[in-house]
């Protein structure tokens, strides 16, 4: 058995307590450990990515045979998601360290590692109750990160975040109860087998379970009408945390994709047509809400948060088709959306520190206005889906994949009009932040030699006047560079994703690997 599969879960799980409970008084030590751990995670993720090219690999925890114990399943999709997570995590971590966010409260690095453990565990598990456990881990860790360094607004938003998501967890538990009561198993592959045997006329319970699970995951993916928590959370979270959260919504999207292709997926009579019909309109409305939020935003962080919401809508529109072509498009868009959201939040952090406000109002231009303007421009066109960055290709892939006559009108109008409104909203914000600011006279700081009367500038003011260093801006640029790379190598990436999708839709292959049907026989 390939023990590397569990390594990305165990490594942060062992490292985090050490950072949190042993190194908590020494920031440089915690930083070093955290960076080293994340780098190691990334290396493991690359290794797993390479290993995932064949059939799904299964890790039987406790050496119990499936479906009786818990299994981890490494297939192409989970390896991709793990790799995505670790790359994003590394970028975000460097930003947090370079900007000093990690030292503005307690336990950043420990929570960060736990957070990674939760996300990666959720991607790797092949057991639906275990998925619940990892949802708990990533939820509680994200709550800790969300309220990192405190503040009134942040605590309030954090409370909302955790309460709504705990309600989601409760629903998850209900859904699992219903599922277990109607199928008697928790292993996803086994569920897939049992689901095929449910007669069409006796499927009420499993249909409820499927629907409840979809709602649980849609809550994570911030889909209408349960998207309300996202803007407040992302807008009030520390910016690097918001950037890391770009992968958290994807956990919801991933779960929907996984559960509804494997268990309730196409060809299952019991839940026939159930998920797609509901996801599609919800995703359309989500796009609209995101676009309106971008256009109407008064502050930069909510603007970005709403643009993330809109991109989740686009992603879910593609996923809701549950066809291989659309899924490939969705996966490409997923990678793109993750890094463009991260780039925007990281960029916003640099700007907000220097503007000392995230209100979209006219204020004097900051230092390095041109640099920030360029970063914003690049990240915004990526998010809004303008060429030349991957957002445009992703959008084209999604549109191209959604050709079913029943949905083409709605899907295309929503995606295209949504992009337009987003573009206008970003242009408004950018022109206000970076152009209009140049027409405002800078009230110069008092000359240093005015004597002792002059009040000493506060720490925030000093930070505001300081130009960014390489380490601070490098993570933003790295996120943009990833976008550039997936644009240029869109062809190879998409053909890889085609393979991923094919594996995802190959239910028999997954079931055979997990339950070892052939080897035993």
């Amino acid at each position, binding site marked *: 058995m390939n023990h590397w599969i569990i390594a990305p879960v165990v490594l942060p799980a062992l490292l985090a307590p050490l950072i949190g409970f042993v190194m908590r008084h020494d920031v440089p030590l915690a930083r070093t450990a955290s960076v080293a751990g994340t780098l190691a995670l990334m290396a493991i993720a690359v290794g797993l990515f390479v290993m995932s090219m064949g059939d799904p690999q299964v890790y039987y925890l406790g050496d119990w045979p499936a479906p009786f114990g818990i299994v981890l399943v490494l297939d192409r999709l989970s390896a991709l998601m793990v790799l995505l997570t670790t790359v994003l995590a590394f970028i975000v971590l460097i930003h947090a360290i370079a900007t000093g966010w990690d030292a503005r409260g307690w336990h950043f690095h420990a929570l960060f590692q736990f957070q990674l453990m939760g996300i990666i565990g959720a991607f790797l598990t092949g057991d639906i109750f275990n998925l619940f456990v990892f949802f708990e881990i990533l939820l509680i860790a994200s709550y800790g990160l969300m309220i990192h360094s405190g503040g009134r607004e942040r605590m309030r938003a954090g409370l909302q975040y955790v309460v709504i998501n705990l309600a989601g967890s409760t629903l998850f538990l209900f859904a699992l109860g219903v599922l277990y009561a109607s199928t008697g198993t928790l292993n996803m592959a086994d569920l897939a087998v049992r689901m095929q045997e449910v007669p069409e006329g006796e499927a*009420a319970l499993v249909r409820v379970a499927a629907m409840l699970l979809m709602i649980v995951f849609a809550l994570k993916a911030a889909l209408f009408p349960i998207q309300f928590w996202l803007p407040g959370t992302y807008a009030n979270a520390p910016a690097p945390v918001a950037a890391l959260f770009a992968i958290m919504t994807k956990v919801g999207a991933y779960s929907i994709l996984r559960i509804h292709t494997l268990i309730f997926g196409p060809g299952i009579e019991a839940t026939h047509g159930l998920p797609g019909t509901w996801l599609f309109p919800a995703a359309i409305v989500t796009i609209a809400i995101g676009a309106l939020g971008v256009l109407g935003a008064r502050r930069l962080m909510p603007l970005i948060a709403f643009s993330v919401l809109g991109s989740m809508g686009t992603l879910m529109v593609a996923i809701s088709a549950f066809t291989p072509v659309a899924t490939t498009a969705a996966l490409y868009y997923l990678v793109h959306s993750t890094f463009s959201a991260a780039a925007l939040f990281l960029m916003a952090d640099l700007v907000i520190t220097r503007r000392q406000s995230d209100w979209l109002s006219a204020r004097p231009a900051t230092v390095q206005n041109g640099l920030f303007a360029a970063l914003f421009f690049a990240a915004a066109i990526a998010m809004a889906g303008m060429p030349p960055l991957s957002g445009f290709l992703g959008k084209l892939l999604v549109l191209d994949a959604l050709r079913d006559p029943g949905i083409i009108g709605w899907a295309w109008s929503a995606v295209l009009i949504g992009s337009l409104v987003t573009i206008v909203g970003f242009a408004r914000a950018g022109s206000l932040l970076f152009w209009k600011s140049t027409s405002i006279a800078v009230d110069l700081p008092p000359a240093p030699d005015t004597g002792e009367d002059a009040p000493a500038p506060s720490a925030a003011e000093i930070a505001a006047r300081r130009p960014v260093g390489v380490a601070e801006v490098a993570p933003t640029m790295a996120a943009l560079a990833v976008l550039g790379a997936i644009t240029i190598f869109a062809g190879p990436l998409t053909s890889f994703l085609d393979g991923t999708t094919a594996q995802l839709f190959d239910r028999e292959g997954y079931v055979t690997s997990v339950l070892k049907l052939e080897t035993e026989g």
Partner: protein
Amino acid sequence: MTVVDNTLIIIALLPFIGALVPGIMIRAGRNASAFFTAVPTALALTMLLLHAPAVLSGEVITAEIEWLPQLGLTAAFFLDGLGLMFAAMILGVGLLITLYARFYLSGDDPMGQFYTYLLLFQGAMLGIVLSDNILLLLIFWELTSLSSFLLIGYWKHLPEGRQGARMALAVTGAGGLAMIGGMLILGNIVGSYNLSDILASGEAIRASEWYLPALILILLGAFTKSAQFPFHFWLPHAMAAPTPVSAYLHSATMVKAGVFLMARMWPALAGTDAWFYIVTGVGLITMILGALIALFKDDLKALLAYSTVSHLGLLTMLLGFGTPIAAVAAVFHILNHLTFKAALFMTAGIIDHEAHTRDIKRLGGLRKLMPVTFIIGTFAALSMAGIPLFNGFLSKEMMLEEAAHTDWAGNPYAVPILATIGALLSVAYSFRFIVHVFFGPVRDNYPSKPHDPPFGMWAAPALLVLAVVLIGLMPHLAEPVVRAAAGAVTGGVLPEFHLKIWHGVTPALYMSGVAVLGGAILLTLHAPLDRLWLRTPRPEAKVIFDRLMAAAVGLSRRITEITHDGSMSRYLAIFVAATTVMGYVAWSGSGLPLPSRELLPIPPLVFVGWICILLATVSVALMHRQRFRALVVIGVIGLTISVGFVYLSAPDLALTQISVETVTIMLLLLALHFLPKTTPIESSVPRRIRDGVIALAAGGGVAALSYTFLLRDMPSISEYHLANSYKGGGGTNVVNVILVDFRGYDTYGEIIVLGIAGLIIFALMEALLNGPAARKLRNADYSQDRSRDRHPLMMVIATRVMMPVAIMVGVYIFLRGHNQPGGGFVAGLVISIALLMQYMASGFAWTLRRQQIEYHSMIGSGVVIAGLTGAGAWLGGKPFLTSGFDYFHIPPIEEFELATAMLFDLGVFLAVLGAVMLMLYSLSRIARYAGETVNIEPMDYDPSKQVVMDEKEK
């Protein structure tokens, strides 16, 4: 005939590759920056012209690289006659603009940035005309919108620039997005996104039911880009850009992209009624409207902008006619318009630069002050008016000739008359440009004394005017280019034609004559007409646009802020309601298997318990505002449930439930001390009723589900667990074996959740106690709540006695866990209850001093021990968390079992204990802030000490 030549890709990419260089080279000076802008342009132009002979002889040069084959997107380029003409125009004028801008921009303007944007735009524009793949074309199309956004907003401190840029982006961006839809439909019809394939499938496209939507969407893109009515309004506002940008983007190249696209798609889309009426109609309206507005514009650049709108309308109309000869006229006019209009913009820029005004009413008489500019401007304007011997005349004659042969819905006069009116207005504003700017008396109140600019600045327009005159006199020079380009537009078949000055006496000549005469008369009447124009109310596009925009922003803001106002109760209500509805919908889509279990009779005892829980639940809802009481009742519910577990023979669950219940209620009570004791009423009665209905519906749903599956048997994996617990897990307590072995990984995850919770509580407390909350705590008055005997003797003594017993019980529960009810989780809770009681009895500080282990490290070591236990299995080559167990016999103890699972359970135990204690520690810290004193003695009143003191007193 197609030739593959990969240098085409280099041509297309050169501007992008070179784009960053001027931005960097500006450090070496403005000349260096300009020079390094010209290098890639000139190089690309040279390489392009090397291909010219082959292309003019009818060859098509192609090159392609795979990009995204799954989508049908390839980086495919091709160069035919049309592409060659446009590419040469883009690069040639690009060179001239580079030169002109070097002198036009002032020292304060960031010139490096300008040239970088310019090259980006040039690359995008070049990409449009060379693309052989419509998706690639879309990419370049949107890139022109973006780069022009940057160029229009180049003077970012000017509000006009910013607003113009945003307006242009909104309008052309919208068109671009519509075009994406159109192009995708087109690709859908044809089955390929390759332009060559699409152009070859005109028949199929026009026959398709999707033709009309595709046509409309694509035309939306073209019309917005080429500023056709009713989207024309953005172009004049884009004139806030520096004049080189106006000359380049807004007259010569970008606005022609729409016309180019219509020409390019001509073989695929043209020739239907829909095409004719939409394109011709829009073109006609735009031509006349643009010309009319131009006549009354006083700003030189606005006049030129509207004249550009008008000429773009003329081109659109020509393409709408759908005849090959009209296509020839269009292509020829594109070329001619480029030469004279770019020259005119540069002239306007020179005048603005020298006289510091572009207001025609403040100019006049420049003929004597700026002779060179006068000649350039006049020649170009005459060409614009369509005066013979200049190139504008030739193409305008062809246009009028075509118009004369065109029927509009059976009416042969409408189009020719309207075309003549358009030409007439065009003559009028062209003459006005000449007469009102250059003629008339020299004034003495120019904002700045004008004189001719340096050679570098007038060289570019002079070169263009040279072309104007050359083509005007010797039209056959342009014929090969026009023939090749028009051939490409129509798909190869061209009627016999020759470009010449004299066509004999034709209807077009009469129309032309009417236009020139009428135009001249109109100009003499300009002053009264102008007053009339100014009095007439007109819709001001910018005002409308701004209002629409503000309304859209306001509406979005309202929608967003009303729906996302942070009302948690509403978010939850929506969540629960949506879940209930969707759950019901899912449920009603299918039926159920028949029940396989009989309803059992209800024993009286169970009934009482059931009633007890019901009553308690209802009373929690009723008195939830009295927080203390509500907590107590919640405790009652929890305990009743554990009794239920006992009744149902689930001792493990009962044990866990009791201990969890005890710990949480104790902690909650401690926390309540610092919180308001009542919950205020914050919502109206209807809202509470609404929430009550939602809650009841959801609760009813859950009850229905439970009832349903309690009546049905289902084979489950738990049978395997029962069978293998002892054999494979070494324990007879299946629940514990499931927790630490079968599903030990879940437990591992859950203790990590506990550990994280501990971390968060600590971090949260730090943040809170360093913030305003700490002040609030300090200032609050808790004296009324405080007992005089906080640490009563009875309790201190009782808990001391209990302590070893409780610990013993904890250890016992821990050890027997694997085989009997118990385990690390319960043991951790039991011991923490024992410790908790010490704290309550004697105060935190007193107890803490007697405790050697830090809670932080207790949680940490718990998590690490559990993890390492799991990882230990690797040493045996087994997967994570594989347990091992064996039986030992050490006399005099009886045979006993040791399992690695116990070590794992130890980790669980430590994490639970540590987490509970850390919570307690945090609460006590709050208490300290709230003024709680540190007690040194274990109890407030100690009778033994009292005795000693009494003795002393004696």
